[in-house]
């Protein structure tokens, strides 16, 4: 058999890799563009600032926007400190052993559980057993559990990426462990930690199943943490599944997509600010 010249295999490889990258990009763009084309015409100032009427067939989505931010924001506020603290403990305060293995293995398993299971657990535990009912706080606690493993693992990766030499240098200059963590390690790990937190916020915002079972699907404006609310993703699901209004459903989806897009851009901007300041 004649050997294919390396230059040819090289050309084939480049073409294939390029083509598959293009496929990825095309799929991504197709979905986003399709939804935006369907949905953007439905977005207006009134749509964003008014309450829905007639189950969402008419009117806006303002209560859902507020509800989404309340549930997702609270979830991140609860999960981020716990997750970051866990990551610091695992990386800086304990040696590798059975305990760290169990925590890490547990976190990885939790990360793979379908969100509807979290929803069921949240419903049984927070809503029923703890008597919180279908509410913002039930939803937020459930989402917090769901995103906790991601926050722990991304924060851990970010902290681990800080060179060990910096730690020794800091100890050598007379720092305690805590001073080393707060003054040397965390500032360097911050961009990575922020990425994890923002990704988790995005996941919380777009979560549907878990919030349906815990935060409920009330259409009215949530006035307190114990009120039931309906998030944007759930609103979109109900609008399209019940056939209430496909136009409003696409418009809601477009708002959701733009929101996530804005969030990611913000995260990038934030990271660049932090890295530039340290550079």
């Amino acid at each position, binding site marked *: 058999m004649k050997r294919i010249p390396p230059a040819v295999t090289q050309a084939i490889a480049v073409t294939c890799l390029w083509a598959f990258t293009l496929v990825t990009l095309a799929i991504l763009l197709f979905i986003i563009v399709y939804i935006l084309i369907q949905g953007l015409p439905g977005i207006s100032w009134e749509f964003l600032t008014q309450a829905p009427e007639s189950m969402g067939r008419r009117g806006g989505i303002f209560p859902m926007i507020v509800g989404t931010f309340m549930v997702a924001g609270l979830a991140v506020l609860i999960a981020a400190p716990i997750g970051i603290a866990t990551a610091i403990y695992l990386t800086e305060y304990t*040696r590798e052993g059975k305990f760290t293995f169990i925590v890490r293995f547990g976190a990885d398993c939790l990360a793979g559980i379908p969100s509807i299971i979290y929803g069921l657990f949240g419903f049984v535990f927070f809503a029923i057993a703890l008597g919180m009912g279908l509410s913002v706080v039930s939803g937020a606690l459930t989402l917090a559990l769901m995103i906790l493993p991601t926050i722990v693992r991304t924060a851990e990766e970010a902290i681990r990426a800080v*060179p060990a*030499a*910096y*730690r*020794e*240098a*800091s*100890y*050598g*200059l*007379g*720092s*305690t462990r805590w*001073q080393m963590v707060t*003054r*040397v390690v965390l500032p*360097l790990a911050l961009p990575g930690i922020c990425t994890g937190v923002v990704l988790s916020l995005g996941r919380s915002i777009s979560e549907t199943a878990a919030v349906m079972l815990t935060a409920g699907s009330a259409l009215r404006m949530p006035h307190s943490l114990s009120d039931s609310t309906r998030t944007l993703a759930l609103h979109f699901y109900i609008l399209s599944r019940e056939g209430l209004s496909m136009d409003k459903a696409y418009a809601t989806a477009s708002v959701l997509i733009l929101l996530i897009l804005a969030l990611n851009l913000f995260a990038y901007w934030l990271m660049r600010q932090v890295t530039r300041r*340290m*550079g």
Partner: protein
Amino acid sequence: MAAEENTPIIEIQNLTVTHFEKVILDNLSLSVHKNERLAIIGPANSGKTTFLRCLNRLNDLSQGFKVTGKILLNGRNIFHPATDTAQLRRKVGMVYAVPVPLPWSIYENLVYGPKLAGIKNKNRLDELVENSLKAAFLWDEVKDRLHMAARNLSGGQQQRLCVARVLALEPEVLVLDEPCSALDPISTAKIEDALFELKSRHAIVLVTNNTKQAARASDRTAFFLMGQLIEMGDTGRIFTNPVDKRTNDYLIGAFG
């Protein structure tokens, strides 16, 4: 002066260190005097670095090290449970083989240690920065750009920054772990000059793989082999008239 020179600041008594059952240092006893530069030489794996890292208890941070014996710093055992290791590391300042400037400016690198020690006064900090940089022969090169990122310095400058950073702690003992192994001859000369000036204020322990450096830049020399102290004495005597055959063999390059 002679009497003071022989006052021990560090006394090591029967120090044995094992790492996962493997003996790294075997029953070492020696002392470091005030105002001297003690060089520690020996082939790879003779325990030189482990020895240094015992002096400021940096080995505590790695897994598997077990230590028996005593290290007395000014008469106090540093392995005593009540020892404040942060405080100890300020008294026994260490310079590593590879310069590691923290990812901040030159100024911030220098004031990090003093700030941790509780010094807040700006004038005092500025004074420490200037004095330490002068003592490490770096002041003239960086005095106009103290707020530049430290990593933009050259390798030799970075290592002198690391020396200065440790001097800013005003340590009693300065320990250096092959500080010139990554440096060019001119940078090496500057560090050696700095060490000569510094011995009037600090005891210096210098681990080096470069026997010529030990001959140039130390007052006494200790020869380590396989975790044991083979021979120790005035540098001139060790290099011209070693007692132990193994010392002689190492110095003439028969092994190591």
